[in-house]
């Protein structure tokens, strides 16, 4: 039952040669094989994982210092480039695409001793909140396989919850790590914009997104962040320095429960979140209700900016240089491009078309520019709240995990579930989702936000809560 171990335990045992990474990875792969028919978190399993684990064991035997993730099984969202392992973005457009280079975060994971066990499912190009929009079929929520795991990093959260890996990487553009973390009852972090390199992350909306870790404990998430965070010469938007994080420190934090995040949320969710804030108060935090009125602009601003950027980012997929098997013979290039790009899924097409519209001349000022103005208002308001509070709290998702297929035909209803998560992306601040409890057997996540580069504060708050609340356990699969 080695696959149940958290990352900290695996790394410690592998470093101390109490455990062979090979044996552990072997068990993880068996676990994947066993539960995948129910969960469908993986798109590609890394065939070389055992071999890589064996090589790591050998290195450690030979006296090479063990990294902070020595031998740990990690799953990587399939929109993060892995050299030699196909990276499909769950899209037909990239069915046969094998990157010739590793994303910086992947390289850093490997340098820290991590073993990548596979590439996990997502909504096509990370566009969605349920992991239903995937060429490889929907990922299922391990707590109830008739329900969605959240998205777009559904595979990243579900694989961690289903014990198919110890930790995983997802990407968070508008809540894509935190939403599935909440729905699958794992810890998920969206770091400060510019803290983690995006080199190798396939862009959806580059001014909003960050690569973020998911794990079963706050400590594991902190460890992974410490490995991947910091300046990267391949990404001009990364901040200077290579920070490090500790598990958590119990301290009396000032906590603001954001009224707007509670209003309109499911009653069962609200009850659990209020309980979570009470728990923090019992731990010595000063908790009170506060208000972030500009939340009302968040969704419109977020979707306008995200779709605009997406429409341009996805232009490169014309199937000329890479993509999927399709002969250009007999096409004039314009018609070939149209033909090839017809292979995007419906949701991606919807966002490309909407994004192109808001950028078109005559509408740019009316939509894109206005969205940017709203974004700076939200950012300013949030910044001023962080003068009064160390962390802002609320539910990660306003609702409980819903049935697969329930909202798939109503894009607007689907977009609404992101209302609490997009704020952190618009403002560029870090946010974490930590398991807060269950309502009728379905997970609820507590979202905590802090000021830019205050990830340690989030780990302190979330770690404190995690210890006190003791929301643990794994689903039966």
């Amino acid at each position, binding site marked *: 039952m080695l696959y149940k171990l958290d990352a900290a335990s695996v790394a410690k045992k592998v470093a101390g040669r109490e455990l062979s990474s090979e044996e552990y990875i072997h068990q993880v792969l068996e676990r994947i094989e066993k539960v995948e028919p129910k969960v469908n978190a993986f798109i590609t399993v890394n065939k070389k994982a055992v071999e890589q684990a064996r090589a790591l064991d050998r290195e450690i035997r030979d006296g090479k210092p063990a990294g902070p993730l020595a031998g740990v099984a990690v799953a990587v969202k399939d929109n993060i*480039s892995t050299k030699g392992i196909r990276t499909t973005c769950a899209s037909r457009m990239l069915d046969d695409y094998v990157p010739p280079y590793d994303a910086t975060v992947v390289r850093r994971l490997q340098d820290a001793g991590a073993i990548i066990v596979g590439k996990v499912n997502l909504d096509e190009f990370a566009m969605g909140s349920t992991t239903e929009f995937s060429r490889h079929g929907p990922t299922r929520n391990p707590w109830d396989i008739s329900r969605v795991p959240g998205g777009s990093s559904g595979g990243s959260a579900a694989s961690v919850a289903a014990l198919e890996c110890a930790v995983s990487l997802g990407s968070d553009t508008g809540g894509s790590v935190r939403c599935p973390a909440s729905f699958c009852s794992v810890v998920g972090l969206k770091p400060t914009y510019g803290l983690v390199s995006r080199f190798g992350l396939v862009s959806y909306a580059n001014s909003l997104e960050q690569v973020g870790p998911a794990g079963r404990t706050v400590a594991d998430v902190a460890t992974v962040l410490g490995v991947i965070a910091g300046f990267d010469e391949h990404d001009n938007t990364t901040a200077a320095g290579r920070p490090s994080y500790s598990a958590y420190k119990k301290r009396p934090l000032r906590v603001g429960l954001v009224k707007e995040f509670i209003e309109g949320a499911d009653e069962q969710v609200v009850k659990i979140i209020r309980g979570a804030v009470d728990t923090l108060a019992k731990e010595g935090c000063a908790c009170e209700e506060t208000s972030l009125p500009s939340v009302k602009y968040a969704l419109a601003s977020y979707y306008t900016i995200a779709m605009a950027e997406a429409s341009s980012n996805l232009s490169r997929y014309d199937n000329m240089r890479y993509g999927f098997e399709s002969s250009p013979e007999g096409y004039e290039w314009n018609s070939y491009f149209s033909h090839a790009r017809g292979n995007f899924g419906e949701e991606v097409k919807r966002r490309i078309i909407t994004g192109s519209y808001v950028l*078109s001349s005559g509408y740019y000022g009316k939509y894109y520019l206005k969205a940017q103005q709203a974004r700076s208002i939200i950012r300013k308001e949030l910044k001023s709240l962080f003068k009064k509070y160390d962390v802002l709290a609320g539910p990660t998702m306003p609702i409980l995990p819903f049935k697969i297929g329930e909202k798939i035909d109503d894009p607007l209803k689907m977009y609404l579930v992101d209302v609490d998560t997009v704020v952190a992306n618009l403002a560029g601040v870090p946010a974490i989702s930590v398991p807060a409890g269950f309502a009728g057997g379905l997970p609820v996540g507590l979202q905590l936000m802090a000021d830019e580069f205050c990830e340690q504060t989030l780990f302190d708050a979330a770690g404190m809560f995690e210890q006190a609340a003791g929301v643990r356990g794994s689903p039966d699969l």
Partner: protein
Amino acid sequence: MEYMIGLEIHCQLTGLASKLFCPCACNYRGSEPNANTCPVCLGLPGTLPLLNKKAVEFAGMISLALGCRIPDEIMFYRKNYFYPDLPKNFQLTQYNAYGITSIGVDGKLAYGEKSARIRLVQLEEDPGRLVYEGGSMEKSLYTLVDYNRAGVPLVEIVTEPDFTDPKDVRDFLNKITSIVEHLGICDTNLEGAVRCDANVSVAGGNRVEIKNVSSFADVEKALRYEMTRQKTMVSRDIEVKAETRHWDDARKVTKESRSKEEEQDYRYFPEPDVPSIELGGDFTKSLQRSMPELPDARKARFESMGLTPHVAAVLIDNKELADFFESAIKMHNSPKEIANWLVTDLMGFVDEKEKEAGHYLSGIKAGPAHIADLAKLVEAGTVNRATAKQILAQVVETGEMPSDIAKKTQVTRIDDAGALAQAVDAVFAAEPSAVADAKKNPAAANFLLGKVMQQTKGRADPKAALELIRKKLA
């Protein structure tokens, strides 16, 4: 008839080592197709542009040289359009809107007696190249794409429509060439390193864009052709359409573009992956300090050495010539003499076509050392001017040193007074009637001099010989 002409000039920053947003070589020429590429310039999923800061400096230098204002902050924008030579299907360029400008704006450049306003200078990436193996799109079954050029830094210079005469355009382009060469940022002799689009309209008529002019020399021709075409149409009461025409290099005419270019909406928006670049006054100040000498200053310096404005201008118009001149005067400090040999004599050996194309020294085997040596020989009186010209002709062909040629063919002057007197005596003996004639008419002495020069194969010092002849006649 009144014409209005405006220009859009593209200069590759060939003086840089790497591309605008990746470490690939800026010099793609001679590489195997698609060998000079990397994940970034191929636009592979997940790659991010990494700004080459040196390119910003180079673009800043051009902006200053063209009298432009440099803003405190610049940004890159995405220009979105689909085309097979564009790996990302958008081009990273700059855009002037919403209070943000490109690296240079509102400049002015004087050329000769005139000047033209510069609307903007912007930094952008070059696309790849489409290759037609059949020679043209019509004659090829398929199109090949070579991305070696994709991402090469390009500076676009846009002028106001301030030109009325194609000759002025030519002078202006020469000036631009000389400036970028002096700044050391662009080798204009490289194929495709400079390109020019022009727009031209007759008074009251529509604006016609001429694209695909791949050499500055052809811009003047393309404009003359287009002006004649428009004039003819106006005189026949035919409306000049607003359109884009392509310059047919082989037939030397402008042609209607085959593919009807639709009105494009480029959906410009700021590139999120390249943070805005703070320039500020310090950037401009430090650039100004490090700017190399520009053509105008160099010309003034040449004139201060005693060169005429015309000679100085000829040298400056082509940096290669000016550099040649400066190297030569370092070896033999006689600016006027050397400049004259260079501008009047050496240039006579250069093929007109090559000159047209700006290759002033191609095929010439004479270097600065040769011209310095030649000037020295003349000034020392070792050979006379006529002989020196003959020597130069030989130098140009063989690359031998002038002093070696002079020694080898014994064309050095007869310095020996005795040898000269012998030659004069021989002529007097052979030409008694001419001698008698010259005694009456002093001007006829020149005939005798000619004979002496003939006898000595030009090696006699004419001055000394004439003196001797006069003495003997008296």
